[in-house]
């Protein structure tokens, strides 16, 4: 099975990211900018299914609204350096058929979501790994039901 991932980011101001930043600052985690994206990851049978998925995903209204989102296909289904993905602790289930937003996705066997977070300092650089880990432990991830994935 191969995997395909898409990042959906708000094109309008992201109030949730702002709230996260203010809360992190209150917790003593120095960051001046927080970026957030919804990550959609699909497990696929083959490359043909992946090509079809590339065509269909932009039409799924529950994933992407062109009026307020930017959609990007990721080169790999995992976070890059400086990012953390927070997702459910349970591993995604494999199904014979996957339906998302009322649309059947041919050749797709699994679908799961994560929230991507990136914290930056005033100069626009990613915060240190230690600080990101602290943000994950104190606020961004509840390990009772979630797991954090880093690069």
């Amino acid at each position, binding site marked *: 099975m191969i995997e395909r991932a898409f990042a959906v980011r708000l094109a309008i101001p992201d*109030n949730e990211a702002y*709230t996260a930043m203010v809360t992190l600052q209150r917790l003593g985690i120095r960051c001046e900018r927080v970026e957030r994206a919804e990550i959609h990851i699909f497990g696929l049978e083959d490359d043909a299914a992946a090509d079809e998925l590339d065509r269909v995903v932009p039409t799924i209204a529950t994933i992407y609204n062109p009026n307020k989102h930017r959609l990007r296909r990721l080169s790999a289904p995992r976070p890059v350096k400086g990012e953390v993905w927070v997702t*459910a602790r349970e591993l995604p289930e494999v199904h014979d058929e996957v339906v998302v937003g009322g649309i059947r996705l041919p050749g797709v066997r699994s679908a799961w979501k994560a929230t991507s977070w990136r914290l930056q300092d005033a100069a626009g650089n990613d915060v240190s790994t230690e600080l990101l880990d602290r943000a994950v432990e104190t*606020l961004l991830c*509840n390990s*009772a039901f979630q797991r954090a994935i880093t690069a």
Partner: protein
Amino acid sequence: MKPKVVVFVFPGSNSEDETKRALDAVGLDARLVHSDDAEHATADGYVLPGGFAYEDRIRAGAVAAHDRALDVVIDAAEGGKPVLGICNGAQILIESGLVPGTGPIRRPTAAFAPNVPGGRFRCVHTYLRTMQPPERSPLLRGLGEGTLVPAWAAHGEGRLSASLEELERIREGRHIAFVYATSDGETTEGAIPNGSALGVAGLINKKGNVLAVMPHPERDAWTFMHLGAPGASRSDALAPSGGIALFESFARAFSAL
């Protein structure tokens, strides 16, 4: 003098009025206080109402658990004052680590995670079955073990989730205040609306002075709200009954402490 209870209102709370009404009805002096005014919120007890504090940003209860209002609530809880969280209030209490209270403050050991199946919001009538004897907690003193309290479960994130070791600690430490039940008191799989581990609908801390309840008893606390349910009488539709029992028990805690 009536015990003073502060009901904290966060941006996004939506059940504060009916919660205050239920608290007033059982003889408490309930005051609504916005979380921004937390430093002025001296009281004998605290209640966190339902809703969507901070729009459930990051995850339900996560931001409010780090709010200044929770500093007040945590101090009060550690001082032995009664604290009650309903629905989103329960989510805030579990995120703050006050319940089940098996780990450090603000390092949650459990969660009210998205419902299964599908993580969907569900609104269903249910019954809370009391799982502890009255002596276990001053907040449960007015409810006998096995008592049924009617309530409405209305949430998308109410499934108790934790590691197997933590679930064992919750069970062994007698932290389960309520489980979901049918009107007959049966605790079947079908009675659980959200896939909650151990069927849990409510948790208490070790000391027994902090109670987190996912369903809303205040939405079934007056006779007109449950006309047609078993045992409901039409004689006085405006009289408190049903879910009010949980608030009566909460009020009794103030004389017990």
